[in-house]
């Protein structure tokens, strides 16, 4: 268990680091996908199989592809996909992020008395129970999410359509 955990978390951390540091945008996205998959592995380790599947389906299958499309639309398609923008604020950013990590997150985690063992050894993470929960106590949340997704879909389309083109469409 601990071995699997170490491997998965190492992959997750390293690929996340590469994703934010690589100059080549497509490589960054591909490592981001590796990060998503490793995280799905961690979810399975925590017995959340359904969420692992959703994680892969949504992040690898949808978000990752979206990012790739965005890269293809904003870069030279065939040529060099590397970012040429110098990051001169790197030092300050590094310092800020490290400060957050070292002064806020890690001490908080390490000082708190947290359970070493889960309450129950194995859970049967029934998808059915999840669905029933979504349908009964969290219906409103589900509806709001549905509305949000629809709004996001429409919003994305409206933003991405160029103004001139939409006027043309109105005329025709």
């Amino acid at each position, binding site marked *: 268990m601990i071995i699997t955990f170490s491997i998965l978390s190492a992959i997750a951390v390293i690929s996340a680091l590469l994703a934010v540091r690589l100059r080549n945008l497509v490589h960054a996205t*591909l490592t981001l996908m590796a990060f998503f998959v490793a995280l799905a592995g961690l979810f399975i380790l925590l017995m959340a199989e359904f969420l692992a599947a*959703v994680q*892969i389906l949504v992040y690898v*299958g949808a978000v990752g592809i979206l990012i790739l499309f965005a890269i293809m639309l904003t870069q030279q*398609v065939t040529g060099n996909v590397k970012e040429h923008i110098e990051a001169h604020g790197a030092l300050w950013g590094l310092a800020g992020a490290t400060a957050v990590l070292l002064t806020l997150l890690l001490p908080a985690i390490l000082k708190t008395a947290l359970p070493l063992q889960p309450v129950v050894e194995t859970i049967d993470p029934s998808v059915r129970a999840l669905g029933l929960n979504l349908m009964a106590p969290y219906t409103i949340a589900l509806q709001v999410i549905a509305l949000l997704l629809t709004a996001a879909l429409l919003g994305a389309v409206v933003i991405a359509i160029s103004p001139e083109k939409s006027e043309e469409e109105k005329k025709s």
Partner: protein
Amino acid sequence: MTPINPDQLIVQLTQWALSFLDSYPLVAVLVAILLSTVPLIAVFPGCFAITTWLERKGLARIQNRIGPNRTGPLGILQPAADGIKMLLKEDIVPKTSDRLAHFLAPVVLMVPAFTILSVLPFNRNMIPAAVDTGVILFFALGSVSTLAVFMAGWSSRNKYSLLGGMRAIAQMVSYELPLVLSGVTVIMMTGSLDTTKIVAQQQLSEWIQSSNAGLQCLGQIIGWNVFTPWGFAGFLIFFVASLAEINRCPFDLPEADSEIVAGHLTEYSGFKYALFFMSEYVSAFAINGLSTTLFLGGWSGPNIRPPWSDDPNALLIPGFVWFFAKMFALMLVMIWIRGTLPRLRVDHLMGFAWKFLLPLAIMNIFVGGFYYYAPRWHGIPVVGWPIGFLVMYLSYECIGRLNRGPKTAQRVYHYAS
């Protein structure tokens, strides 16, 4: 010693073998994992080899040719010859390609292709990974193949490859929707994402367990989802969408040879190409296996109980025989389609997914819901069936008419006077 059931023979053998390892639980787990994964890795490449031969022979028959006939009787050794040729070929990597992504792409394609096989129930008690979320895991891992195709297309630094990769992404993302939605109807009716439960739901257990052999046979067939209006429509939508999902003709745009040479495969050769080729066929098996499971009753088929067995669920013909028979039947239909139909164009392809299959799949969900709640007479859906069928047929006609428009029509030709 339990009585030997022909259909459970492999399961019983496995359990017998594992019983020796009871005192070494860790070894037992490892052996159990090996016993459930190695057959997958051994059987499906074999099926792939047979299918390449079948495809070449079948296409040849469709096209008035003979097909491979030099290697062994009827050219049956052709896959072996092809395999040896592929392995011995030089592996050419374009100089400017992105080497890592170029190398990883076939691997990234192959791993999910084999992994998704593990949620398919090949027989009763014969499923490599009995997970509660089987169907959604299948779709989730299946969506990773999109990424692999993009990697292949992008890393080759070839414009044909890039076009193929972009086409593949657009196509796979679009067709995933009707594919999943037509499966959703089945999930809704079963109330489970578990593939074993989906198969079990399609068998009429009272009939199977009766003493009448005819009823036993019938009970294995009559409950198949494909015999319900939503199941039939769902099966057709699923099948068409799966053709697009695995880039088979007439949706083989990502590797359209007459337009973009071989799409994302253009710069692949040798072993990597073989891996790609195999992964595509294995995904084809997987998706046909899933449509078998969802709509065609999985491993069930005309079957009777062995007379010597007391187990009410025991069957004479092993279920995996039926499973593979159905899977290969679907493969043959795919080969037949490939020999018959021309390819769609990219905008037609998108229109077909978004304007035709998707509304139909959504309609199908409503029909499924209606069918579920419609009153029944002695368990027979006397209301749900005809009305469901009528609604599906009418929506097919309407959506089809709306899509066709005035653009294409048979023309009348005149002669010069």
